[in-house]
């Protein structure tokens, strides 16, 4: 219910059926899709940039420098946040599907997911941005 697509789609995709209106579960489903698609597109670029190790060390190093740019660094934090949400919510989906009490606790598990996300992302983002901030404002 929380994760499948076929039933949710009935009466929605063609013609003027009502939209699928869940509440919180719907938004976790929407977020799961968006973060998933985003990650897949990033993966496409990431495998190609890593493949440059077959060209030359200089080519690889110069492209990897892009990842160290402050703006790209912020986007990386966004990517890590997206992947982390997708992973945590994926665990929640599995619990809803396979754990007998999962459906009853799906809402509580969503809040738990978000809480864990914040607890991991705050120090995670700090360690990811630390070097960029000290390079930019450190004043050497």
């Amino acid at each position, binding site marked *: 219910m929380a994760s499948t*697509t076929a039933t949710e789609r009935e009466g929605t995709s063609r013609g003027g059926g009502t939209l699928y209106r869940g509440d919180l579960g719907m938004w976790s489903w929407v977020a799961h899709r968006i973060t998933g698609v985003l990650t897949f597109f990033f*993966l496409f670029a990431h495998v190609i940039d890593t493949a440059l*190790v077959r060209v030359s060390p200089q080519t690889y*190093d110069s492209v990897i420098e892009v990842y160290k740019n402050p703006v790209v660094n912020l986007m990386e934090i966004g990517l890590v946040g997206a992947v982390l949400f997708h992973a945590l919510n994926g665990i929640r989906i599995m619990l809803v599907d396979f754990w007998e009490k999962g459906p009853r606790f799906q809402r509580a598990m969503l809040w738990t997911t978000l809480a864990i996300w914040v607890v991991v992302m705050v120090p*995670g983002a700090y360690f*990811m941005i630390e*070097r960029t901030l000290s390079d930019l404002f450190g004043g050497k």
Partner: protein
Amino acid sequence: MSNALGLAKPRAPRRPAARRSNFELYSWLFMRISGMALVVLVLGHLFIMNILDGGVHRINFGFVAGRWASPFWQMWDLSMLWLAQIHGGNGLRTVINDYARKDATRFWLKILLYVSMVLIISLGTFVIFTFDPNITD
């Protein structure tokens, strides 16, 4: 669609065996199994590459060479590549099925998707197996 098969006589003592394939069931199951593996593989990868020990700033050719000298990290990256591509590709297939309105659009988007999956899996696998730390020599 093919639901008609089973719905025609729901209370008949013996329904005709469904002729649908179980592909969607296996795909559903695969998403969960690969998802469990990817939680470890990808979050581990992100932690090592972005957070541990200076994060992205220490990554360069030498760093990659050091990692891929170990069969453990080669296998880690190889499984992550295959699982993430198939998991993500299957997810995108679902998204395309949901939102593409015309059959032709759906068909071509999926062709594009499958081509990109084959390309990325092949390229990544090739690079992991043929990586040469002394490429400039």
